[in-house]
C-alpha cells in the first residue's frame, strides 16, 4: 500500500510541527494497523489474569482480536482469535477457563496450544492434507515481570531492546515492592477520537493536567473547617503549580514524565502509604526512582499512571478508540491500600472518573475540529521545551529534558511513528535509530546537553 502523501510529510519534529491529517486520514489509519500495530510490542495480558491451566483472556492488537492462554506447562501463549476455517471469532467471552476452544460456526475445535483437534464430519469430507496445516495463528510473546506483550513481526527487535532505557522507568511503576502487581479493577469504554491522543498524553503531556483537571483537584481534596485545604492536600496542588521534574523520551517512541516530589495524590490512605514506604522503595530502586511514577507510555498504546492505572488504547477507525484499563495494586500493599487504589481509580481515571471525563470532551472536540480542511492543514504545535535534551543526565538513563512539562517525548514519539509508517523493515529501523542516538550523544556538550547553549 502506498500513501498519497507519506506520513513523514506531515511530521516535522525538528520544528515541532505536526499536521492533523495523521489523526484523521482513513488511508493512514489502515496503514497504521499494518505498519504500527502488527510490528510493535503490545500489552496483551498480565500473568495474574491467567491463574490456571486453560485460563484465557481476550485482548486486541490494533483491530485484531487476540486470545491469550495459559498452557498445560504453565507458559503463556497468544493466538489470533480467529477460526482458521472461515474466519469466525473463535472465543467470544472476555475471560474464563476452558479445556479447548470450539468455534460456534461449524464446530472446529482447537486445544489450548492452538492445535486443531476436531473437525465435525472431517474424515468424510476433508482430505487429511487439507487440514494438516491448520492451526491458530500464533504471535511472539514475552513475559516482563508478569506483564505479557505480543508482537506479530518476527523481525522486530526483542522486547528488552525495544524497551531500551524505558525499562528503568517502567520498573519504578511495577517493581517498587517485592511480589509484583495484581489487578483490582477493570474498565472498558470508547471515545470518539484517534488512538494517538491517548498515546501522546502519557508519553508527553503532563502539561494539560492543571487546566484540564482543575475542577477535580478543587473538589476531591479534603479541606479544613475554615475551608482551606488540609496541609497534605495543599502540597498536592503545589506540585502542579511548581511543576518541577523531567521527561524521558525514547528512539522507539516511548515516553515518561515525572514530578520531582511525586505525582499528586488525591487519597489520604494512598498518600500515607506511599510516604511510609518511600524509604523501602528507595532501597530497592534507588533514591531518584521513588518519584518517577507520573505518567508513561510504551509505544504504541500501553499507558500507565502513577495512580496505578495500566491500559491499552485500541484503535477503532481514525475517529474512535477503545480504552481497556486495569487498576493494579502492588501485591505487597496492605488490603486497605489496595482497596483505596481501586476506589480512587474508579473515581478518577475510569469512564465515570472525574479526571477522565474531561479528557474525553477535549479529545472529542479536538477530533471533530479536524474534519475541517483548514484545521487539518494547520500545523499543530508540539514545541514545548525544544533543544533542552541531554543524555544520561544526573542518573536518569537515556534522553531526558529538565522539565515535566515538555513536548520532547511527543516529538520523539512521532519521529518513531513516522519511521514505522515509512514501511522500512525493522532491521533497517534498528540501525537508523542506533545511528541517530549515536549522533545525538556525540553532539552533546560537556554537560550532556544537546544544545551547547544549555551546557
Amino acid at each position, binding site marked *: 500500500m502506498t500513501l498519497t502523501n507519506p506520513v513523514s510529510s506531515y511530521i516535522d519534529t525538528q520544528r515541532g510541527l505536526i499536521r492533523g491529517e495523521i489523526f484523521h486520514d482513513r488511508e493512514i489509519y489502515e496503514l497504521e494497523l499494518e505498519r504500527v500495530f502488527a510490528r510493535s510490542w503490545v500489552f496483551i495480558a498480565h500473568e495474574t489474569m491467567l491463574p490456571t491451566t486453560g485460563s484465557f483472556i481476550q485482548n486486541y492488537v490494533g483491530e485484531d482480536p487476540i486470545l491469550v492462554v495459559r498452557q498445560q506447562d504453565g507458559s503463556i501463549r497468544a493466538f489470533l482469535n480467529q477460526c482458521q476455517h472461515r474466519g469466525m471469532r473463535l472465543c467470544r467471552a472476555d*475471560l*474464563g477457563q476452558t479445556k479447548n476452544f470450539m468455534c460456534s460456526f461449524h464446530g472446529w475445535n482447537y486445544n489450548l496450544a492452538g492445535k486443531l483437534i476436531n473437525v465435525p464430519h472431517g474424515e468424510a469430507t476433508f482430505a487429511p492434507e487439507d487440514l494438516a496445516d491448520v492451526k491458530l495463528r500464533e504471535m511472539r510473546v514475552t513475559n516482563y515481570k508478569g506483564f505479557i506483550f505480543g508482537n506479530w513481526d518476527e523481525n522486530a527487535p526483542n522486547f528488552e531492546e525495544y524497551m531500551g532505557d524505558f525499562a528503568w522507568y517502567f520498573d519504578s511503576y511495577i517493581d517498587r515492592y517485592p511480589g509484583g502487581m495484581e489487578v483490582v479493577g477493570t474498565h*472498558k469504554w470508547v471515545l470518539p477520537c484517534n488512538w494517538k491522543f491517548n498515546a501522546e498524553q502519557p508519553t508527553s503531556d503532563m502539561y494539560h493536567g492543571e487546566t484540564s483537571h482543575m475542577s477535580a483537584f478543587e473538589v476531591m481534596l479534603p479541606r479544613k473547617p475554615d475551608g482551606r485545604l488540609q496541609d497534605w492536600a495543599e502540597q498536592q496542588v503545589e506540585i502542579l503549580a511548581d511543576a518541577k521534574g523531567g521527561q524521558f523520551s525514547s528512539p522507539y517512541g516511548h515516553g515518561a514524565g515525572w514530578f520531582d516530589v511525586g505525582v499528586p495524590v488525591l487519597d489520604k490512605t494512598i498518600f500515607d502509604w506511599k510516604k511510609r514506604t518511600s524509604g523501602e522503595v528507595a532501597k530497592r530502586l534507588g533514591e531518584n526512582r521513588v518519584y518517577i511514577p507520573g505518567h508513561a507510555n510504551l509505544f504504541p498504546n500501553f499507558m500507565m499512571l502513577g495512580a496505578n492505572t495500566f491500559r491499552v488504547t485500541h484503535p477503532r477507525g481514525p475517529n474512535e478508540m477503545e480504552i481497556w484499563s486495569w487498576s493494579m495494586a502492588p501485591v505487597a500493599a496492605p488490603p486497605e491500600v489496595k482497596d483505596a487504589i481501586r476506589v480512587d481509580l*474508579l473515581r478518577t481515571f475510569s469512564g*465515570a472518573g472525574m479526571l477522565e*471525563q*474531561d479528557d474525553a470532551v477535549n479529545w472529542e472536540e479536538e477530533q471533530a475540529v479536524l474534519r475541517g480542511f483548514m484545521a487539518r492543514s494547520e500545523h499543530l504545535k508540539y514545541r514545548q521545551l525544544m533543544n533542552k535534551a541531554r543524555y544520561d543526565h544526573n542518573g536518569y538513563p537515556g534522553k531526558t529534558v529538565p522539565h515535566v512539562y515538555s513536548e520532547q517525548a511527543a516529538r520523539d514519539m512521532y519521529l518513531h511513528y513516522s519511521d514505522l509508517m515509512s514501511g522500512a523493515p525493522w532491521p533497517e529501523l534498528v540501525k537508523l535509530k542506533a545511528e541517530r542516538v549515536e549522533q545525538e550523544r556525540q553532539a552533546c556538550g560537556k554537560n550532556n546537553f544537546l544544545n551547547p547553549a544549555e551546557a
Partner: protein
Amino acid sequence: MKTDAHFFSAYRRPQSRLASAADCYQVSQFLFAEADLLDSWLFDEWLQLLSPDIRYWSPARENRLMKDLEKEVSPAGGSAHFEENFEMLRQRVARIDTNKAWAETPPSRSRHLISNIRVFHDAAGRADIYEADCCFQVYRSSGERSQDSVFGRRIDIVQRDPGEHGFKLLERTVVFDMATILVKNLSLIY
C-alpha cells in the same frame, strides 16, 4: 443453568411483598421528581433527597461463559463505575459547580426516562422502607452534534421522610446494560 446464577435473580421478590397501589404511586412520583431535578440541573436540591448514609453503587459487567454467569456482574469490592457515599456524590455536584468540569461545561441536555417500576415492601419488614425497581434510559445531547444514551436497571431503597419530597434515597444500585461502556464518559448521575 443454575437458577440463581444471574445477578438479577437475587432481586426476584414474592408477589406478597408488592406494595399497595398508593405506595407504588408515591414512590414512583418521588423517582420521577428526582429525575426532573437531575435533568433540570438542580443538583443541590437533588443532594437533599439523599440519606447521609447513602450507598450509590454501579458494578461493571463482562462477557462471560455461561458457566460463569454469576461473575457477569462484578461483586461488591470489584470493578465498578460508581462506588460512592454522600461526600463523594457531593464532590461530583461541587465539581460541576466549579464551571471547569469540561465534560459538562457547557452543560449537556439530559433526559432520565424511568419505567417498569415495581415497588416492594422491605424484606426485613420495616414499615417505612421500600425497594423500588425500575429500568431507565438516560439520553444526553452535548455540544453541537454529540448524543448518546445508556440503558440499565436500578434497584433503589427509599425511606419515607417528612420533608418536601416524601422520601429519602438510602441505597441505589445502577446496573448498566453494557460491558464495554459505549459512550465517551459517564458524567451524569444515573
